């Protein structure tokens, strides 16, 4: 059973009941991510600054209060949102909500606590140099998206250096707001009591956040970043159907056949048959109003060109359609995940979040199940023939540059 409520201040609460569980998982999405931040890195710094004291608690007392509840927690800034997630025993939820009320509405934003937050953000950014795959995708997303979807929440050293307490306090007041914020929750709770608690702690919160529109993308180019890493990192991005498009379920099933299981095409052709890689994947990375397919392979320099060429051949072959067995395997995989998600509070809380981000509504498991069940092989193959994944944005990072002509792309070219 899914309950939801829209508060007058814009806050949306959604909760899925799993009364047999001992615990509850929840997550706030607040529209204060990097997309509209005043300086590169501001969202990340604000996110960690808010953790350093709120309401009647100083920095350490706040963490002690969280730990006294046994709260498992995480927080961070992404492109659109800052997220604050938690999981704990059901009886402690009211106390946790009170603490999150302090954290979101009444952070101290004490000037003495700001400098370490900025220093840590500089180090996080330096850490990217030691994480080649992450570094590649930060660059690739920036190249692929012409809209703000391509910004990185890690920011820039220059942006971080220019941050001031006033700027961040103003940003907090303007963007850490209920309009556009979601609280999603799954597990054991009493709905009327939950509504009253959320009203009590967040009812007076005011303000309207800004959300990204549909993405604008750029494709048909290849760029190389020279790096002394052991492997060559290969990244591709394709535009893909939006979550609300009629192609969504055929697309989801086709991509599962391409990369979802042990017998998927990429695993079979790139790893099993040829031993070219340890990791290869194609993952849908949709945003509200748009789709994107993110492809990754990591491989030794001497195998990198062949790996890229095999990827090109697989995307060409995709337009010829799937076999019936491939579709059925993809369907069983997605349906099984759906059933298993019901066993886990965190999986269902994440499912609700994702629906809200992508569909602007909450789908019941039955609806998703039906969506997957109804798709025929003809529909999937019609989609693949019509959509034809071509002209990706390609980037590589590593000791050797590759040739992308198998994709019909000359180096540096942009469509």
């Amino acid at each position, binding site marked *: 059973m899914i309950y939801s409520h829209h508060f007058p201040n814009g806050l949306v609460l959604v909760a899925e009941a799993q009364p047999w569980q001992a615990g509850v998982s929840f997550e706030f999405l607040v529209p204060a991510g990097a997309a509209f931040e005043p300086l590169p890195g501001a969202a990340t710094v604000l996110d960690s600054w808010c953790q350093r004291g709120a309401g009647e608690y100083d920095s350490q007392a706040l963490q002690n209060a969280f730990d006294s509840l046994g709260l498992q927690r995480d927080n961070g800034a992404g492109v659109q949102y800052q997220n604050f997630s938690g999981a704990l025993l059901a009886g402690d939820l009211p106390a946790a909500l009170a603490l999150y009320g302090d954290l979101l509405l009444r952070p101290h934003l004490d000037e003495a606590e700001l400098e370490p937050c900025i220093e840590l953000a500089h180090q996080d950014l330096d850490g990217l140099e030691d*994480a080649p795959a992450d570094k590649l995708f930060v660059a690739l997303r920036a190249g692929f998206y012409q809209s703000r979807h391509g910004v990185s929440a890690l920011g820039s050293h220059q942006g971080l250096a220019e941050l001031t307490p006033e700027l961040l306090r103003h940003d907090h007041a303007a963007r850490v707001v209920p309009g556009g914020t979601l609280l999603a929750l799954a597990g054991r709770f009493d709905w009327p009591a939950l509504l009253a608690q959320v009203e009590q702690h967040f009812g007076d919160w005011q303000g309207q956040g800004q959300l990204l529109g549909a993405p604008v993308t750029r494709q048909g180019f290849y760029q190389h970043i020279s790096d002394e890493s052991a492997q060559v990192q290969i990244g591709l991005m394709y535009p893909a159907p939006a979550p609300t498009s009629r192609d969504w379920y055929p697309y989801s099933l086709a991509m599962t056949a391409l990369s979802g299981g042990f017998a998927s095409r990429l695993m079979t052709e790139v790893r099993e048959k040829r031993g070219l890689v*340890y990791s290869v994947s194609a993952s849908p990375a949709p945003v509200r109003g748009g789709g994107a397919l993110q492809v990754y392979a990591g491989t*030794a320099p001497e195998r990198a060109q062949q790996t890229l060429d095999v990827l090109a051949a697989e995307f060409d072959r995709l337009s010829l359609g799937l076999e019936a067995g491939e579709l059925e*395997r993809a369907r069983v*995989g997605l349906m099984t995940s759906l059933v298993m998600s019901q066993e886990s509070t965190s999986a269902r809380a994440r499912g609700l979040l994702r629906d809200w981000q992508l569909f602007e509504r909450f789908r019941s498991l039955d609806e998703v199940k039906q969506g997957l069940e109804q798709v025929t092989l003809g529909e999937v193959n019609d989609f693949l023939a019509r959509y034809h994944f071509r002209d990706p944005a390609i980037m590589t990072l590593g000791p050797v540059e590759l040739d992308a002509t198998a994709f019909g792309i000359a180096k540096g070219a942009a469509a």
Partner: protein
Amino acid sequence: MNFQQIELANGLTIIGEHNPQAKSLALGYFVRSGARDELEGESGVSHFLEHMLFKGSDNIGALEINREFDDIGAKSNAFTSEEVTCYYGAVLPEQQARLTGLLSQMMRPALRQSDFDTEKGVILEEIQMYQDQPDIVLYDALRPLYYGHHPSGQSILGTLESIIALTREQMLDYYRRRYAPNNLILAVAGAYDWQALLEQVTLLTKDWQPAEIGRLYPNHQPRQVNEAHFAEQFHQAYIGMMAPGVAIQDPRRYGADILAEIIGDDENSRLYWALVDTGLAETASLGHSPEDQSGHYSATLVCDSEQAELVLAKAQAVLQSVQADGVTAAELSRFQRKLAVSTVLRGETPYGRLFPFALDYLDNREYVSLETTVERIMAVTLQDLNDLLALRPFDTMTVLSLRPSSALL
């Protein structure tokens, strides 16, 4: 929850934790063998063999195995550690027989030469992938430095050289030594059918022959070591520390786990407040790993290379001050609760229960339910922690720093 256990005539032990409310079941073969059981010249064979089991038996090939996993919607994988190799999957209850059949067939691999040669390429790729990950490079170098010639220091992945030199015959020899049924456990959790499982596994494993299996437990005397290595490819400093902890067989391990959290959890520990809160280090954490007849604490520090000396000195001061002054009752109670809640939440799914209950049983031959785990965590006293600190574990530490510039060494 209801525990079930049986030992078959061939020595294979089957254990189950039944949860009729679950919507799925998780099932896995746990082999009591890993990098520490490799002989000279075999470095990396446990992990390579794990890959080879997915290449099939005499009756089934790699592509068919992969298809069967996908046909039944299994969420499957395998892992190799220093001590255990595990093959597992989670499925809906109606697929129990097919998952059981598939994993059981995989346990008797053909080890075809052509598959061996192709998969060698994948293993070499995996090793190179990890060469780009500083935390893995650090840990891989720290462990042998701490354990010296003790087998617990042996590498899981092996090296490019050891894998290139490894032959199919060596793998077959390792397999025959280590994969006998009396060195395996088949564990299942969730909504399974016990009777059907017993009948199927008894039949499938009737030809499996037990063997004499040992494991070496030489003495290990931790030494005070402090080394710095030049790692030009990285941009930050990565510092690892290892110190003696307690074994998985030791009832004090629950206390050691809590002690490690008090000192080095991610968001509210002694190391956090000294190093991360102040902006000196991006990461400063300590964990405790109870293993078979030994255990260790290990710490990781990540910081700007120019701050490395300061960060290391401050981290060592934190450890010394905990050792000298102990921890507080408030710290104990906060982390007890945090650990207990995390245990409960992880136990929501059969998949989350499979590993804790099977790994406990593997080394201790003892079933520890989720409730018992929580009770043991909550029963730890301040005296228990002070007794662990009285052993002065942080006096004999192995420290390894990876630094991007030789000028700073």
